[in-house]
């Protein structure tokens, strides 16, 4: 081993040509810790004293091998990550055929390393996906293996115990007391004496926590029911058809499918307890028939519930990587994990629903051909519309005189900045404008405002009233009211004429009479107009 670090482990060693596919034996299998190193002539098998030793050496070998391969492939210019490299080595070691092929092609120089692996891309990907999916589960011996191990197995299986541990230890009772209580409760369960269980629970409220049905479990079950995927999986295959299997396998299969795919609990039963009790009715933890009173059902647990829960936890997998630590920390870590995973599941579910909610047949077709809009010259629009406006509005029809500027940009910017700094230093012009200019502006504005010349006749809808402020205009708009006002003024004028003293009457009437005449003429005109209007019966739509 030419690695930078050296590891010394004791190992027995033998040479063999048998069983070349396996690299090392798995922990937990019956075989002793062997490491198998394959080389061109055969392989060496090392037997270690313990599995940790094996793992240390395995890693080292992996690194060394990858270095070795790297140094051999000088031709290839690609840079590979260590993960990629170990993956390739692993594939070669697992697959003797592939290894042979690799030796033939690459070692002989027919193919470069990268070319070889390009054709085997599928294999690499496969391994990648396999790695992603597989998680290490719990050992399938949870229920009966109830030592207070600190790897959180009990916590995972029984959330109520987990919660109780977090609540009670160490504030209310010591750890030892806690586990004592727990196993006492377990013992009472195992006696199947529901009456005794109820009695014990009544005496000790802490103990009752363990004896009652797990509320958290129920809540979770309810939550899961609510989370059921409302979509139908049409890809169910024969493997999902469990009815032809013998009852024992059926049960296992059920446990598996129920805890694996929440869609099967769509009937509303938490975790499919309903289905299983129908299948194997009456199997309780001790195999006895259901006899107890209904009121004690609270303290009764069925084997099926336990089985379901266990299979769920086993499949959920061991989410704890920390080795033996204090149970308190384990409990806390587990609690945190749970919260995190709940959020992820909820999000996944929402994503899935949003994806499935779209029904293909009902979607609008989006295969319309499209092309980006390319306007050749946006100026055309301007010319088309504005040319007219400018032409008619400018008093002189000479058109636009184009401004000419022969100064460079430095010059113009310079002069602009100079005028800014001018104001900065000198301040505003004082006085801002001379009285003569002010008068000119005022008279000009007044003339502009009072003149109706430019407004009248331009468009038929506008009238003199339009130039008045909107409030006054509204008041005047009603012609009837206008007429009333005029006739009022008319009668007032008449009053003025009559009320005047006789010697002044003539002069007053001289002033008033033309005004009165004009008003009367206007009234006459209005009446005639109204008559004419009402005579025209079929009005065109929108005509006022």
């Amino acid at each position, binding site marked *: 081993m030419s690695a930078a670090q050296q590891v010394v482990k004791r190992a027995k060693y033998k040479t063999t040509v048998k069983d070349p596919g396996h690299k090392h034996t798995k922990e937990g299998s019956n075989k002793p810790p062997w490491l198998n190193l394959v080389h061109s002539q055969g392989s060496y098998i090392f037997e270690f004293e313990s599995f940790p030793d094996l793992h240390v050496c395995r890693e080292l070998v992996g690194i060394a091998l990858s270095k070795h391969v790297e140094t051999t492939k000088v031709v290839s210019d690609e840079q590979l990550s260590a993960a990629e490299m170990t993956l390739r080595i692993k594939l070669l070691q697992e697959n003797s055929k592939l290894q042979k092929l690799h030796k033939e092609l690459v070692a002989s120089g027919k193919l470069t390393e990268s070319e070889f692996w390009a054709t085997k891309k599928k294999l690499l990907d496969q391994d990648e996906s396999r790695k992603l999916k597989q998680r290490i589960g719990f050992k399938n011996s949870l229920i009966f293996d109830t030592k207070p191990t600190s790897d959180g197995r009990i916590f995972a299986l029984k959330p109520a115990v987990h919660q109780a541990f977090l609540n009670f230890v160490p504030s209310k009772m010591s750890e030892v007391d806690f586990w004592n209580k727990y196993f006492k409760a377990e013992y009472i369960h195992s006696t199947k004496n529901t009456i005794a269980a109820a009695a014990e629970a009544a005496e000790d409220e802490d103990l009752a926590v363990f004896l009652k049905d797990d509320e958290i479990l129920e809540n979770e079950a309810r939550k899961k029911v609510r989370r059921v995927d409302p979509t139908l999986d049409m890809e169910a295959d024969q493997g999902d058809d469990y009815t032809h299997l013998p009852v024992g396998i059926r049960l296992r299969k059920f446990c598996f499918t129920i805890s694996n795919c929440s869609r099967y609990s769509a009937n509303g039963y938490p975790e499919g307890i309903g289905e299983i009790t129908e299948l194997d009715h009456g199997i309780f933890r001790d195999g006895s028939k259901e006899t107890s009173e209904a009121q004690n059902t609270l303290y009764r647990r069925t084997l099926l519930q336990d089985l379901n829960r266990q299979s769920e936890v086993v499949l959920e997998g061991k989410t704890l990587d920390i080795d033996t630590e204090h149970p308190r920390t384990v409990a806390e870590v587990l609690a945190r994990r749970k919260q995190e995973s709940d959020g992820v599941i909820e999000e996944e579910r929402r994503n899935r629903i949003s994806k499935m909610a779209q029904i293909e047949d009902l979607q609008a077709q989006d295969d319309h051909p499209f092309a980006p*809009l*390319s*306007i*050749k010259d*946006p*100026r*055309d*629009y*301007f*010319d*088309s*519309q*504005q*040319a*007219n*406006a*400018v032409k*008619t*509005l400018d008093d002189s029809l000479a058109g636009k*005189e*184009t*401004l*000419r*500027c*022969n*100064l460079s*940009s430095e*010059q*113009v*910017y310079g*002069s*602009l*900045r100079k*005028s*800014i*700094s001018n*104001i*900065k230093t000198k*301040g*505003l*012009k004082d006085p*801002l*404008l*001379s009285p003569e*200019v*002010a008068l*000119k*502006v*005022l008279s*000009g*504005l007044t003339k*502009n*405002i009072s003149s109706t010349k*430019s*407004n009248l006749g*331009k*468009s038929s809808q506008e009238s003199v009233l339009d130039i008045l*402020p*909107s*409030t006054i205009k509204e008041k005047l708009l009603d012609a009837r009211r206008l007429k009333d006002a005029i006739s009022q003024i008319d009668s007032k004028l008449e009053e003025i004429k009559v009320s005047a003293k006789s010697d002044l009457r003539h002069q007053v009437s001289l002033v008033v009479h033309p005004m009165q005449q004009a008003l009367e003429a206007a009234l006459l005109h209005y009446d005639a107009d109204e008559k004419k209007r009402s005579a025209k019966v079929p009005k065109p739509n929108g005509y006022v």
Partner: protein
Amino acid sequence: MASVPSKHYTDDISLLVVTLDTNPFFWSTFSFHFSEFLSQVLAFLNSILLLGQLNQVVVIATGCNSCSYVYDSSSDRNHASTNGTMPAIYSNLLHNLDEFVAKDQQLTTAHKPGTVPSSLLSGALSMALCYIQRAFRAGPMHPQPRILCLHGSTDGPEQYVAIMNAIFSAQRSSVPVDSCYIGSNNSAFLQQASYITGGIYYRPPQLDGLFQYLSTVFATDLHSREYLRLPKSLGVDFRASCFCHKQTIDMGYVCSVCLSIFCEHHDKCSTCSSVFGQTQSDVASADSRKRKAS
């Protein structure tokens, strides 16, 4: 557009967004000097703020390469570096304006020598509208916003689409665009903008009395305008003319893709190169009426 939440509108408090033409090419050719223009405008802005404690003034400089906010009376970032000779509003604005002009100069791109590039009115209008939209959404009460364009340089036809979009968006959020055009010819853009949004378009004939025009015509808040008689924009002739011959037409063909107007049928749109379908020339008279432009 998301509807602006209903708020309590104040009657006579103004949020005045002023766009200031700082096109150096225009000012260097124009008879009215920029410093004089600026001093009249500054006095006007100050008077707006003095009219009401809650009035707000925002100034946007409109260069020919860029636009920028140069003054906001509500901003705290106005560093009061007064030398005592003038109010903070003047020194802040002038300081920012100077910086803006320097930046604008760095962005200068080559243009046809001898011509005057147009100012970026579309950009300034958009910025003003953005500011107003923000004001709409902030706080429980807000003043009635309006935009005042102080412009002199000629219209840039290439900005037409952008400016029209800005105008329509102003119309939709009922923000009047007042225009005080100081150039020698009328600005079709600003006429259109004021006409559509219900603002005032005015071209002061006496530029040395600019302050008086501004304070008598453009200082009136939206509430007071109901009771005052202000210079009314003359009816603007916005009849369309065709793209092909520039003739005013009452009826014509409109491209359904880009809305170009033609006086006669074409096989292909000259503006956006869309290929037109076959016209039913057999049933022409009845059918072509449907494609008419008003």
